[in-house]
């Protein structure tokens, strides 16, 4: 059975949203913990792994990424890989840049917006 375009794009948007949420939460968790090399010199490898795995933002981010993986399988079952692959990747890169600007308070200057645009176009062209 062929899925409607609305159905397909809803699935693509859902997968991309989960990916952005996951990556932003993991980045927020890592930012909260600070440089892992410095952390390892203070707490050792075991202490560093424990600090990462008990960071609530990291755990939420990892769960979102796991959910993203399974929802991706669903999206690929109703959409063509040639559409879903680049669309999800492009939406995720743009969403990450916007979320990094507003939620992670990163200074996304013209250089980084240009890089994001190049990545989005590059991914779309590579999938042709």
């Amino acid at each position: 059975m062929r899925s409607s375009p609305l159905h397909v794009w809803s699935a693509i948007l859902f997968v991309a949203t989960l990916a952005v949420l996951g990556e932003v939460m993991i980045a927020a968790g890592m930012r909260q913990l600070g440089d892992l090399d410095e952390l390892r010199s203070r707490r050792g490898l075991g202490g560093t792994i424990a600090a990462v795995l008990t960071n609530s933002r990291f755990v939420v981010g990892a769960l979102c990424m796991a959910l993203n993986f399974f929802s991706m399988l669903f999206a690929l079952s109703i959409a063509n890989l040639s559409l879903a692959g680049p669309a999800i990747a492009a939406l995720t890169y743009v969403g990450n840049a916007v979320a990094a600007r507003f939620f992670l308070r990163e200074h996304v200057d013209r250089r980084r917006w240009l890089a994001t645009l190049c990545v989005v176009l590059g991914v779309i062209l590579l999938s042709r």
Partner: protein
Amino acid sequence: MKHVLRPSQYAILLGVMLSASVGDSFLKRGMEQVGAVNLRHPDLLWHALFNPYVDIGIVLLIGFFSLYTTALSWADLTFVMPATAFGYVVLALMGRFWLHEHLSLWRWLGILLIVAAVGFVAGGPSRTGHPELDRMDAGIGR
């Protein structure tokens, strides 16, 4: 140390660029040997775990996730993002030079754009933001 990366940090970014794409290639090779997994043959997933290519692929993807999270501990998400996208370039080049696949002009243009993106962010700082807010953030979370 917010603007200058240490050699070990460049090595981590290189690992991020290579590990996911090489891991995906090993998984693909392994799953080609295992065969198509579907609801009628779910047991093939168990057999896949005993395929050396699948095992190497899984180890590389775990390595990618570790390196990626490590990079995010000292660099911005928008700084690391192009490095993850570079994996697509590695995959395309592996296809061209290892599997002798044809790369169209569009794909070469895509490669050029992603390489340019890496160049754009590599010339800037790895970490930006508000130091005061970051300190407050770190204090609350530990």
